[in-house]
């Protein structure tokens, strides 16, 4: 009884397990992020499965090959490249791609690792060409917008400011995409974008650039200083000028006022004294008298004649 049960149970278990194995090896889950190519003995069968969900295949003999459906990133190797104007720069770019045609992709490059090497070959090469065929400024600037430099820099001749560009960063990367896209298309890869992530001078060039920047700054600093001195001197000059102007102005005005007053006084005197011949004589007389008062002092000798009016009575009361 027990032995029989074992056998039946064992047999049932085997059947169930085999059934499960068959089920599990024929059903497979395709995630939202995936697409699948079914191969039978290595040969692709049917259309690629791009719909997420549960799918079936023949067990054992068919194999599901999973591929990414999402946008994928490609990160280029930082590359030392000379530009057209002979500057050595490191260029690090990144690209965005996806498996556009999984069947083609599977046939040509098999998997992402294979794709990476092809992408490396094509994109690194094209990036190198693009950088090497243009002046550095073309890959840095995007537009010809006028750079706002400090005004002192604009006078500096060899400054690289406002160099004209013909293409600019955007167009150069567009050119890379245009050149790369058809070559990747045949690999089942769609290239959506490539951009320069980093462009920097290589070490030795960097040092020189830093030196240039330093000397540029020094020049600006010197300019500020001499500007300060010049401005200060100008202000001091202004001071002297203003001082002289103010002082002389005041002197002139004072003299004018005084002169006018003197003139007026003269007119007044003249009007008073010049009324008639008599008044003139009287003025002369009065003034002379005043002058006597002020000019004679204790130490003076006064010699008078008795013939004069004053002493005529001294000897002769009749005055004759």
């Amino acid at each position: 009884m027990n032995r029989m049960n074992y056998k039946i149970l064992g047999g049932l278990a085997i059947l169930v397990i085999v059934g499960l194995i068959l089920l599990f090896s024929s059903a497979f889950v395709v995630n939202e992020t995936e697409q699948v190519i079914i191969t039978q003995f290595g040969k692709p069968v049917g259309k690629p499965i791009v719909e997420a969900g549960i799918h079936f295949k023949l067990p054992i003999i068919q194999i599901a090959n999973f591929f990414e459906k999402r946008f994928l990133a490609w990160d280029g190797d930082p590359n030392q490249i000379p530009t057209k104007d002979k500057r050595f720069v490191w260029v690090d770019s990144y690209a965005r791609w996806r498996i556009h045609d999984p069947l083609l992709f599977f046939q040509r490059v098999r998997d992402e690792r294979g794709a990476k090497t092809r992408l490396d070959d094509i994109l690194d090469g094209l990036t190198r060409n693009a950088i090497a065929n243009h002046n550095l400024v073309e890959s840095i600037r995007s537009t010809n917008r006028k750079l706002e430099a400090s005004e002192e820099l604009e006078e500096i001749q060899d400054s690289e400011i406002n160099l004209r560009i013909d293409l600019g960063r955007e167009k150069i990367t567009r050119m890379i995409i245009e050149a790369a896209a058809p070559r990747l298309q045949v690999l089942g890869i769609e290239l959506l974008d490539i951009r320069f992530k980093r462009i920097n001078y290589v070490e030795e060039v960097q040092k020189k650039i830093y030196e240039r920047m330093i000397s540029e700054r020094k020049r600006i600093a010197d300019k500020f200083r001499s500007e300060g001195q010049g401005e200060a001197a100008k202000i001091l000059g202004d001071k002297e000028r203003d001082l002289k102007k103010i002082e002389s102005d005041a002197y002139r005005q004072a003299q004018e006022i005084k002169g006018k007053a003197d003139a007026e006084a003269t007119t007044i005197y003249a009007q008073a004294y010049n009324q008639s011949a008599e008044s003139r004589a009287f003025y002369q007389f009065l003034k002379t008298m005043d002058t006597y008062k002020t000019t004679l002092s204790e130490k003076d000798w006064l010699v008078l004649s008795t013939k004069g009016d004053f002493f005529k009575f001294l000897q002769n009361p009749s005055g004759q």
Partner: protein
Amino acid sequence: MGNNLIVQEILFPLTSQLFNIYNENIGKTFISFCREGGKTMNQELPFDFSKFQFPKIEMKVIRGIVAGIIIFILIFSSVFTVNPEEVGVILRFGRYVRTANPGMNFKLPFGIEQVTKVPVERQLKVEFGFRTEAQRDRSKFSTRAYQQESLMLTGDLNASEVEWIVQYRIADPYKFLFKVRATTLTFRDMNEALMREVVGDRSVNEVLTVGRVEIANTVSKKLQQLCDEYETGIKVDQVVLQDVNPPDSVKPAFNEVNEAQQEREKMINQARSEYNQVIPKARGTAARTIEEAKGYAIERVNQARGEAHKFSAVFKEYSKAPDVTRQRIYLETMNEILPKVGRKLITDEKTTGILPLFQLTKEGEKKEGGK
């Protein structure tokens, strides 16, 4: 979130692979197990069907335990909570079916439906050129190692170090999870490329000083455009420029420019202050000179008027009796001046020698005059 991604990316291929292995290996063992009646397999297999009967446990109990375990798994694999800042993205056999809102939620058990939680409300942050190291009380920053991120060329082919942060949210969890692989890494690349593009179109002066806000805004705008174009599902909240510096070895020169600028201002201010010390004072002095002159003028004119009036008045009276008045004034004057004069000599026309006349002078003077 990351774990769930791993579950999705790895578990499913893994399970299918596992069954393949099952197929190849365990399948064979079962075949041999059947042949040899299970005796030899007792030690090798992890479980043994024959053992089900030996411990005399009642089938009811076994059924109960099995049912209990199944219910337990059922509940655990079908109930889940979504935190307030998250949503749960639910996949049925890998296929997106719905999004679960915060709170308690149900899904089909046994891995038929799987949930990935995405923090859509949380503001996330990426840093460039530095990393915030400790967030406990005061944030420490380390920058040295990330110089490669921050060093970039400006449009005038100078170098500058720009550090910035980006705050963003996951606006569309579906796109975020299923449209782009390694979304956060891609986001970093986009940031670096765009920041360099924008900085590359500006002069070092603009980057270091006046253009900061404008650069942040432009990058933010372009970044959003690119995020939409790349279908990352990311909503950019803000780009904030942190430290923007010239490279270390150039820094002293930049500082020197600032110093020189200060120096210039200082010199100008000094000159101005000197000007201001002198000129207002001079103006005051000038005003004083002019006022004084005006005073003089008034005085002079008044004097003249007064004297003129006085003269006119006197002359008027004089005209009435000129001889007498003239005489009077003469005598009055003499009266006034003669006592003042020290020595007087009065000569007579008859006197020929001067000597005798000295007798006329005062006593004291007589002797002197006698000599």
